[in-house]
């Protein structure tokens, strides 16, 4: 059904147009003044200001490896993370721990452990699948590099980022 759109009756002031322009100029100047006084809330000035202190508990940043309190590598090179990793960012080369080693009882550890941070999608599946709780997603998010090779985190880099994780592994914890 057709209906007639009511056209508003403009007053002379509105028709003259100039007062409306002045009104508009007043509004934009208000914004300008607020900005100059620093009252406007603006975006975070990134490299100087960061969000680090307000990152939530569940934040998923760069995946890292951890050692336990005895300085033992928690990773036992079971390669579950390598198999579950959706973008196949993880490459593990396992090795047998020599018999004269302090931790010979653990039998295996990774000889090489590489995560290609160009491929990593920060999904956290590696953390979830790890039976030894050796791999954790930490809160580092600014992973940059100049070359592709630089973006591949090797074992040393992963342990450096990960640090030490103390306490019982959940699978041995009867409460969990």
């Amino acid at each position, binding site marked *: 059904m057709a209906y007639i759109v009511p056209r508003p009756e403009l007053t002379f002031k509105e028709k003259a147009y100039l007062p409306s*322009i002045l009104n*508009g100029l007043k509004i*934009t*100047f208000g*914004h300008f003044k*607020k*900005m100059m006084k620093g009252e406007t809330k603006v*975006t975070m*000035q990134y490299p100087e200001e960061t969000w680090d202190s307000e990152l939530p508990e569940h934040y998923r940043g760069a995946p890292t490896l951890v050692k336990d309190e005895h300085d033992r590598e928690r990773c036992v090179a079971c390669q579950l993370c390598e198999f579950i990793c959706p973008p196949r960012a993880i490459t593990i080369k396992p090795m047998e721990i020599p018999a004269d080693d302090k931790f010979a009882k653990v039998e295996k550890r990774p000889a090489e452990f590489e995560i290609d941070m160009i491929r990593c999608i920060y999904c956290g599946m590696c953390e979830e699948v790890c039976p030894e709780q050796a791999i954790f997603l930490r809160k580092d998010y600014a992973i940059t590099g100049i070359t592709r090779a630089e973006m591949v985190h090797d074992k040393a880099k992963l342990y450096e980022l990960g640090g030490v994780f103390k306490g019982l592994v959940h699978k041995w914890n009867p409460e969990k």
Partner: protein
Amino acid sequence: MTTLAFFDSIPWEMILWAAGKSLFVIFGVVLPLVSYTVYAERRVSAAIQDRVGPNRTGFPTTLLGFKKDLQLFLGGLGQPIADAMKFILKEDFTPAGVKHFYFWLAPCLAMLPLVSLAFIPFGSSLFGEKMVIANVNVGVLGIFAVTGCSVYAIVLAGWASNSKYPFLGGIRSSSQMIAYELSMGLSIIPVLMLFGSMNLSDLVQYQADNGWLLLPLWGNGLSTERWLMLIPLTISFIIFMIAVFAETNRLPFDMPESETELVAGYHTEYGSMKFALFFLGEYAAMIVGSALMVVFFFGGWHIPLIPDGNGVGGLSFLHALPDWVWGIVNITAFFGKVAVILVFFIWVRWTLPRFRFDQLMKLGWLYLFEIALANIFLAAAVLAFTSN
């Protein structure tokens, strides 16, 4: 005439002064002013839209091996330099199928508004030399002639690009410029009627002695004639300002390049430095327009109570300083006034939405043109009434 006599007959001093003044105005003032107007545009628009704007580009001292870029008081002041570097280093791409000669000619013509700066008195005098490049009696006509030519850049760019959007932009622009050129010229006539000459330096001198046209507070500016003339002059000023907005293709009249309809209008097919020339030309036209407004209505280089470069007028104790100081103060005052009007241009741009094309034409032909015409008769009536 012997060679020597011919050599002597050349007015070397005048040529040197003219060259020096041209170099100073174009490279010392206007081009930096253009680039920093672009920067101001970005910062002011950001502030109006509750953003921060470009505040990081310092002077790239990191290239010289320093740890940080040099940030001067505001931050981002290196932005125009970075912009220019970007434009210069970009590939100068010419699309296939363009009309090469005109395609290259158009961006050159876009810088034409700079020529009209020759007629504008940008300062009183310095070391006894008048601070205007060409002190001619047809100053006003000269400026209108030159700015009238600037439409060619847009028309040629639109036509030579051999593409539909530039073509539409060029056509729109030519019709718009013709419509507003008329009211622009007519709106100035009351000023010329009051003053009776077209020499811009004399016009500014008159305003310095007898009160600015929109601020008649001293000299014969206190007469009934001048105060009654304020009515037609204010109308003149408003029409002239609107026409300048339209002539320089600024919002709310930026029809030729309305990006929502025409991609980028007449410069769609242009890139790198050729685009930059259009861009700079537009801002140069803005500066010329503001300079005209200052000269016609706001007393040019004059500030009340400050003497001019010849040591005339102003407060008496200020004459203790040498005259050239005041000459420089006058030049600064002129470009300061221009800068204020430029900021107003920017402010308006980020306030008003674009007109529809038919509204624009209607405003130009049906309102501004008629009002400007009637205004001439009003001014004539005021002058006739008060001269008795």
